[in-house]
């Protein structure tokens, strides 16, 4: 396959960027999208040009590093991470636009790499539990009802990639924040901070400059881990409950 890539190039956080066109030849349909970018970068290095900077780590769809907007869709045309997107999803001669996540809370560091530490600060605000130190407790010391365990697991699959923010027309981080809140709020271990967690994490989310939710559902449609849109409703319910219970 031969492809035309139009990639956002930006040399630093304070520089202005632009879309630059590149040609890549002899792309195998079995390559992952990141391998295709590796081929391009090898070629750029041999020509003495700056390679395209992009985040990547595990390359098996579980770390959440590799975020980029491909042809207007977060992580590209398939609902998975960019590393798990394969070139068989494209056709010979395609023109592919590649851009970084766009959000005020995710400033571009270089090319396709954005600073997602706003997510870390949301987690720091309440994405933890208070556990007594000591040896590991018995596995069944605290019983968890099966439906609660399932709901917690479903939300815990969030890898914090930021596709929800990138796909949201409002740049909202509600799906990410709701997944992190629901994961802990539904479990017995998460109960001591149940109210402060939702209040503090939502406050931090707002302070980071993310947009508000208008229930478009773009986040859930882009989420590589399939976090359901209902998670946002659950977070809203938790927020209203906490706001009633814990006056500040």
């Amino acid at each position: 396959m031969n492809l035309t890539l139009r990639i956002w190039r930006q040399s630093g956080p304070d520089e202005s960027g632009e879309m630059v066109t590149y040609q890549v030849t002899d792309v195998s349909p079995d390559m992952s999208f990141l391998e295709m970018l590796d081929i391009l970068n090898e070629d750029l290095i041999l020509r003495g040009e700056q390679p395209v900077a992009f985040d990547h780590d595990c390359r098996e769809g579980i770390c959440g590093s590799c975020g980029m907007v491909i042809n207007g869709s977060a992580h590209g045309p398939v609902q998975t991470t960019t590393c798990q997107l394969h070139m068989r999803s494209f056709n010979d001669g395609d023109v592919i636009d590649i851009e970084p996540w766009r959000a005020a809370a995710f400033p571009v560091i270089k090319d396709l790499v954005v600073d997602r530490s706003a997510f870390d600060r949301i987690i720091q605000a309440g994405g933890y539990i208070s556990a007594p130190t000591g040896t590991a407790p018995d596995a069944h010391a605290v019983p968890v009802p099966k439906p609660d365990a399932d709901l917690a697991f479903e939300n815990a699959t969030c890898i914090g990639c930021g596709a929800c923010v990138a796909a949201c027309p409002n740049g909202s981080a509600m799906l990410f924040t709701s997944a992190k809140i629901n994961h802990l709020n539904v479990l017995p271990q998460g109960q001591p901070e149940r109210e402060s967690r939702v209040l503090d994490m939502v406050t931090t989310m707002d302070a980071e400059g993310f947009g508000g939710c208008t229930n478009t559902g773009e986040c859930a449609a882009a989420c590589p881990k399939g976090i359901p849109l209902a998670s946002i409703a659950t977070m809203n319910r938790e927020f209203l409950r906490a706001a009633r219970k814990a006056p500040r």
Partner: protein
Amino acid sequence: MASTGVIMLLFLIVHMAGNLKIFFGPTDFNSYAAWLRTIGEPVLHETWYLWVQRVVLLACLVAHVTSAIQLTHRDIHARPQRYRSKRPWRATFATNTMRYGGAILALFVIWHILDLTVGAVNPRGEAGHPYENVVADFGVWWIALIYVVAMLALCLHIYHGFWSAAQTLGANNAARNVVFKTIATVLALAITVGFLSVPIAVMTGLVR
């Protein structure tokens, strides 16, 4: 936005049902309209209840529009640099046109009050004769067109708005999602069909 939207939606259901009285003829419709002014008597004076309702609805409308503007403002600032490539169209038409539909409805509310409450822009505009005013209204094609366009915008607004309110107020969950979507569809269609039946009846000569 969710709570004020729900209050205005409740009013619309009653308003639509009241409008259907027009099919019982001028005497029924006009006496129904006159009765609206007497609600609450003898505890309340004439039109007191009506004014309480107007103030509540106006407060809801102002709060609804204010939060819509605040939300839009915040959302624009959350993405200062836009994407170069076009976003694929995944959400429904209703979802993507909420802001435009809302603006159409805000303009329509002003028009509608000037038309059928105050009577200033009504072709007949005679106080105490709502039946005749309505018939005079929809005899003019462009007034009927304004009404039909606004009601279609209302349909889309309720379809996304009702379900969205269920999300925002935390009433929705995975199991109830289909229930709220169904109620939203039924409400949107029932209210729109109910409201549209009046201009259609006038234009087809069923009500004259």
